[in-house]
């Protein structure tokens, strides 16, 4: 088949909503864009362990300690699963991680904000995991098979995380005045950064139209953001908390909740590495990765010794 007819065939499959699998032909740009997206997603899961992991040792009850540890562990599992999906496209986990640690790969902007109170643990579960779920629910329909299947599995767990986060918020909101203030303060700090998680507005989103054409993304950034706001507003009401947006109104015709303007300058400076925790997050990942190099080296050396021993035994038989 010529390049042109392969391309034609590929586009036909996308149009018919067929899944593209690892061994199928695909345009090299499709492959590159997917590796970029999936690895960014994997990095976000792993870096995302840090702000909440910060509270495991201080969780205020044994039950909360256990459920928070299990939640952060789930995120590690998501990272592993996603690196695996990127590897089906010919990428190597080690290379992807090195790009992250070298500052050449992105991860979700949200994890560059600090988590300074227990309220932050609640709000991250409620809003950040829910925002991730909105995005991932769309991706379960993605044209690349392994990514779509990873999303189905991961979404189930994110839903559980969201419910757990909402429950933390509900208890705080109904608690002492200090706990209530903690919940509201966390919402005040995390609301706008969560809206930014969906990426720049559609007119400024560089990759969107191509990804939508390939059915890698099924909805635009602004559509996803709207979907999320419509979910979160009634939840905040149920939690008896105030969303920090004085301009938030309901459009009586469409039923959608319309937010006030987002501070995109803040988003851009986070992407440029100027967020409150950008440096610390990458530094922490570097410490764990490079600090663990001798462990990985030892495991390789031991495996090698075992292989040699087995080979010798076989020869002497």
């Amino acid at each position: 088949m010529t390049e042109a007819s392969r391309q034609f065939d590929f586009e036909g499959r996308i149009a018919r909503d067929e899944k593209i699998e690892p061994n199928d032909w695909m345009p090299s740009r499709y492959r590159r864009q997917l590796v970029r997206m999936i690895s960014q997603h994997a990095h976000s899961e792993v870096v995302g362990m840090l702000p909440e992991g910060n509270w495991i040792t201080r969780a205020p009850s044994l039950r909360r300690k256990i459920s928070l540890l299990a939640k952060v562990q789930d995120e590690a599992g998501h990272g592993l699963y996603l690196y695996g999906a990127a590897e089906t496209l010919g990428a190597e986990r080690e290379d992807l991680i090195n790009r992250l640690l070298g500052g050449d790969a992105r991860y979700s902007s949200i994890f560059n904000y600090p988590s300074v109170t227990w309220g932050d643990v609640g709000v991250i579960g409620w809003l950040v995991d829910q925002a991730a779920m909105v995005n991932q629910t769309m991706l379960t329909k993605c044209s690349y098979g392994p990514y779509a299947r990873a999303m189905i599995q991961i979404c189930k767990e994110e839903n559980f995380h969201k419910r757990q986060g909402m429950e933390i918020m509900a208890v705080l909101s109904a608690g002492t005045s200090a706990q209530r203030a903690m919940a509201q303060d966390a919402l005040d700090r995390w609301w706008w950064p969560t809206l930014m998680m969906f990426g720049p507005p559609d007119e400024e989103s560089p990759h969107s139209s191509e990804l939508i054409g390939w059915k890698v993304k099924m909805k635009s950034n602004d559509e996803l953001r709207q979907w999320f706001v419509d979910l979160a507003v009634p939840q905040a009401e149920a939690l008896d908390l105030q969303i920090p947006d004085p301009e938030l109104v309901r459009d009586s015709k469409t039923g959608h909740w319309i937010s006030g303007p987002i501070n995109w300058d803040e988003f851009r400076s986070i992407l440029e590495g100027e967020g409150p925790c950008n440096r610390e997050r990458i530094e922490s990942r570097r410490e764990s990765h490079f600090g663990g190099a001798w462990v990985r080296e030892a495991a390789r050396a031991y495996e090698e010794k075992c292989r040699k021993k087995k080979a010798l035994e076989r020869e002497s038989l």
Partner: protein
Amino acid sequence: MVWEELRFQALLRHADDRLVLGHRLSEWCGHGPTLEEDIALSNVALDLLGQAKVIFEQSIKTDLKKRSVDDLIYFREIRGYRNVILVEQPNGDFACTILRQYFFDVFNRLWLNSLQSSIDKDLSSFARSALKEAIYHERHTKSWVVRLGDGTKESNERIQEAVSVFYPLSYEFFAQDEIDQKVFSKGLLPNTACFENVWKEEVALTLLEATLQFPKRTSTQMLRGREGRHTEHLDRILSEMQSLARAHPGASW
């Protein structure tokens, strides 16, 4: 001491071991040397915290002061903690964490195995399910002890150092006082002295397989975690662990 108090105190020791060690392991979450190992360490931490929860719940049935599990964890002073000194030691590097964990895992497996024949039905059925976890933990940490011991020069040196620091602390697993003896004679909890030799033999075999040297010093009689005489490390753990709960006394979470 009345029986209720004896029972409570004896169970508290084993709940505290698991709480403190589970807490220590949870410090690794997000910082493991590989993602796989990050997940594995968290798994062990979760199992230990789960075991602690069950033992605490059993213990408070005879707490004369009628405290809740969270009261015990978050509002007890350091002198009231009854864990062995080994489990409160800092994580150090991965070799230290693995070796400390291996020592505990062997002990835990032997203890749970024996606890299956407790006269207390709740404890014996707990032991049956927790034993499966302990066997799995031991298999995992043992394989790492061997891998690190027989891996590279660096990994060998690191875990050898851990052996010489931690081995002397292990005697506390088997040290017995009046409380241990009474709960043993009633058939409630295992007689730990019984499996001291088995523990030593199994550990010695693993060290041999891992090409590690047996430590010169094998016991430090100065430590009395079971009597509430701890190192400064536990103070740090508690001030972190209890900080939020203590800042909001009476609050629920």
